[in-house]
């Protein structure tokens, strides 16, 4: 038996390790290479971890993500010019999903931007795009009174995602270990507040990538193991488990969230990916504006629900009923929550309407598929 889908190890490059690596080893994690990092792919069972996040909560180590601080009097104006969305007008304590585009309107990265203060923003980029995002932001900062700093090496990121997440944080607050500057109960979705954990600064954001309620906690690497341990211990009686990247991928897929390198890339325009809303065309200028509109014939991202149990996977062909190729799968899995295979795919515009009957070529067999609305799963 061989595994046909695991990419070859990147030879000769020293892997990077999370500040939580020893904790994961002790917890029995299996590791995978992700953008040059050795990160937990699963601890015991990725299905169990997936279900735990939907029913209780999961703890994720996301310390490989890139954190870029943008500060200075022109910070808002700079981000408006550098990104597809308008960031200057969001209130302090708010977060916004945004895109960093090439001059040609392709996607360099998708980002979450937090406004921490009037002149302070935190831009969170994908691990694999760390240098591309940082370099482009630094380049575009020219002429603005702003500093752009890559703080990734000084930042650990722990996410707790699932219906029990708030209760677990409340226990840490009651135990006088976590001290948010304002009540956690008032922190709504896509907001961020500052505080301390064991007297060390922590950012508490109500954001995530699983389709569940949850939090992302940014703090210094040296205190991250203590926070992880505290969350794990407080969470265990509630059914909270550590969760690896395998479950994170099936969770985000069910939630219809794009993954850079799969649904998003340099040759993808935002509107093709269903992200037209992220692009603020009311701004008179921003990097990529002139070419951000895709051609009318450009393929668009759709959700597919498949029959049977066999998953459609990235790069499999999507065909119409006559067998003519009309698209390509970008992500797919047997949905643990729904019990049938789901996939995201780019298809020709005339095959993209919800309800369209298509097929996916799963290693030589055409599996019937129907275009469905995204997300596949929405929490009740």
């Amino acid at each position, binding site marked *: *038996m061989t595994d046909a*889908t695991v990419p070859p190890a990147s030879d000769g490059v020293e892997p990077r390790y999370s500040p939580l690596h020893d904790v994961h080893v002790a917890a029995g994690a299996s590791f995978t290479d992700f953008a040059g990092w050795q990160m937990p792919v699963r601890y015991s069972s*990725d299905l169990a971890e*997936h279900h735990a996040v939907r029913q209780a909560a999961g703890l994720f180590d996301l310390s490989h993500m890139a954190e870029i601080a943008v500060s200075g009097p022109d910070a808002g104006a700079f981000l408006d010019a550098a990104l597809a969305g308008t960031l200057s007008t969001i209130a302090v304590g708010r977060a916004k999903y945004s895109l960093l585009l090439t001059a040609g309107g392709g996607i360099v990265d998708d980002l979450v931007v937090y406004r921490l203060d009037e002149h302070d923003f935190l831009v969170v980029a994908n691990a694999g795009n760390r240098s591309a995002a940082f370099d482009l932001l630094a380049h575009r900062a020219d002429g603005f009174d702003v500093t752009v700093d890559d703080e990734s090496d000084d930042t650990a990121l722990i996410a707790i995602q699932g219906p029990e997440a708030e209760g677990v944080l409340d226990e840490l607050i009651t135990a006088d270990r976590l001290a948010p500057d304002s009540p956690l109960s008032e922190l709504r979705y896509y907001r961020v507040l500052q505080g301390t954990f064991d007297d060390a600064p922590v950012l508490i954001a109500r954001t995530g990538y699983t389709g569940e309620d949850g939090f992302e906690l940014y703090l210094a690497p040296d205190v991250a193991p203590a926070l992880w341990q505290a969350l794990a211990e407080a969470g265990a009686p509630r059914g909270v488990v550590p969760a690896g990247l395998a479950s994170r991928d099936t969770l985000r897929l069910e939630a219809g969230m794009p993954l850079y390198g799969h649904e998003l890339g340099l040759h993808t325009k935002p509107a093709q990916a269903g992200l037209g809303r992220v692009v603020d065309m009311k701004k008179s200028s921003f990097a990529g504006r002139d070419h951000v509109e895709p051609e009318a014939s450009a393929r668009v991202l759709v959700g597919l629900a498949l029959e049977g149990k066999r*998953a459609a996977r990235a790069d499999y062909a999507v065909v119409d009923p006559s067998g003519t190729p009309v698209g390509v799968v970008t992500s797919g*899995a047997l949905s643990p929550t729904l019990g049938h295979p789901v996939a995201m795919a780019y298809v020709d515009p005339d095959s993209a309407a919800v309800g369209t009957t298509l097929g996916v070529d799963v290693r030589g067999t055409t599996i019937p598929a129907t275009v469905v609305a995204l997300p596949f799963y929405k929490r009740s």
Partner: protein
Amino acid sequence: MTDLTTLKYTAEHEWLLIEGDTATVGITDYAADKLGDVVYVDLPAVGSEIEAGKVVGEIESTKSVGELFAPVLGTVLEINDAVVDSPDLVNSSPFGNGWLVKITMSGDLPALLSRDEYVALTAE
């Protein structure tokens, strides 16, 4: 619990229990762990003739697809319907209820690995 030293192994992470001219085949715990949770198993039809080294089935986990290679030349005598219905048996009992196929061997036994040799292979 199966005595793992009585089994033979392949470099493709299959195990074989050889009894007369019948070989029972599954994948090892190492392979099951590497795959992650198995969610779909595709096995060859009973009666089909298989050739050593050829792909005869698939084992899919949430994350990846593994190919099942025929370790020996022969005819498929029986397949494990239970594992088709409950693919998680591959994870929970790789050497027991998670067996995949029984093959009536019709050729010479190819070179296979002993338990020690297999463990050494996976220890790298």
